[in-house]
């Protein structure tokens, strides 16, 4: 174990792990941005009304329900094999990004929906009476209030999501966990390596979780007038 520690605390090895952590952050950032945008579109479509959009609504519901009920690992393998079928030399990084985006969009859509539906009905009725269009209603009445509900849960989800990206290593994508596996394969004590990887994930996840908790407390405070 002491040998393992010595082998680990070398600039080159630590840089290797650090680059892995960078990739983990990149995967998370892409997944979250796409998830937030696509999740909003899905939730917007899903909470809409009118029979013209019914097929769209069903499609959005189906997408959300299906991808929330398939394990990320299975989604990842499916995307991987499907990509290999369509593009012979598909980049593993983009395979992982696609799988991550599919999952995060589905989960974010549910969070967004809960946010959009948190606005009191009376306000929506008032806006409709004032002849707001659906988009105006969402932009000027719903979103300014809904984001306070959405943001804490979205961050709580992102905290869980960072940890799921570790599975991308299983598809051969270079990120933190993959770096750990590579070092273990190179003969460094797996106990030390995976211990270090665990610490690194903790170092990413914990501040984010703390920030989420802080926002939750901060945003649930009632708004008071004046400064």
């Amino acid at each position, binding site marked *: *174990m002491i040998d393992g520690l010595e082998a680990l605390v070398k600039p080159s090895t630590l840089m290797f792990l650090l680059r892995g952590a960078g990739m983990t952050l990149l995967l998370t950032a892409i997944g979250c941005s796409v998830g937030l945008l696509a999740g909003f579109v899905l939730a917007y479509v899903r909470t809409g009304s009118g029979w013209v959009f019914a097929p769209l609504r069903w499609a959005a*519901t189906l997408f959300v*329900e*299906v991808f929330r*009920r*398939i*394990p*990320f*690992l*299975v*989604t990842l*393998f*499916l995307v991987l*094999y*499907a990509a*290999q*079928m*369509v593009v012979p030399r598909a980049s593993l990084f983009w395979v992982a990004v696609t799988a991550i985006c599919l999952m995060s969009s589905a989960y974010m859509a549910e969070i967004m929906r809960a946010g959009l539906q948190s606005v009191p009905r009376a306000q929506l009725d008032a806006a409709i009476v004032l002849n707001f269009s659906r988009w105006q209603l969402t932009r000027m009445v719903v979103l300014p209030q809904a984001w306070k509900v959405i943001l804490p849960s979205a961050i709580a989800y992102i*905290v869980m999501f*960072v*940890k*799921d990206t*570790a*599975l991308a290593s*299983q598809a051969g994508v270079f990120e933190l*966990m993959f770096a*750990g*596996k590579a070092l*273990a394969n190179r003969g460094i*004590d*797996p*106990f*030390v*390596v*995976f*211990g270090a*990887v*665990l610490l690194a*994930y*903790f170092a990413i*996840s*914990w501040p984010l*979780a703390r920030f989420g908790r802080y926002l939750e407390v901060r945003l649930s405070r009632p708004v008071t007038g004046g400064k």
Partner: protein
Amino acid sequence: MTYSLQFGQIMRDIPYILGGAWPTLWLTFVIFFAAAALGLFIALVRLRGGPVTSRLAGLWVTLTTNSPLFVILFFLFNGLPNCGILLSPIAATLIAFIAISSGYLAEIQRGGIQSVRQSELDAAETLGMSRWQTVRHVIARHVIKTVSPALSNFFIFTMLGTSMASLVGVNELTGRAIEVTSRTFRSIEVFSIVAIAYVVLSLAASMALALVGRMLFRVRMRVV
């Protein structure tokens, strides 16, 4: 485009793959209930324990909810043998999942316990309820009502999570899919069947949980 879908080749393997639903289900049940019990204990220690023990319970929650399950699983399965501890795949899975889930479930149940208001406890006392009656009629009702949507969500989460056990060699749904894929190379067919199996299983579980909640505790839950 040289790949064409051929379900015929894996017809004989389909019962075997779907049979993986049993390990998935019993793993989910064992993990969920063990972790819920442990989580309840941790939540109670956190709320009622002394200054040191409640700190420790808080630390446990922080550590478990911020560590990736997959890495813990790998650590237990590949890291510990170097220290002379050799765990079977099932043992490693159960330890990793129960430990991590206990943190999340402790937080969920803590929220539930805190949702009981002091005034209601006072009312129960005024009515002359015994401690047990208070727990049964006042506290439990409240806790279950606030906690059940989150618990049923977490149950589904656990079920989907058990797919990771395949990576240390547990032969559940995903594990069998990987095995059959390596034998037949019909990857997309096998994994789409497994994906459908997960959707069906988790939908059934959601409905069953919603039904239990409604019949036993009169809690209304949304399935879809």
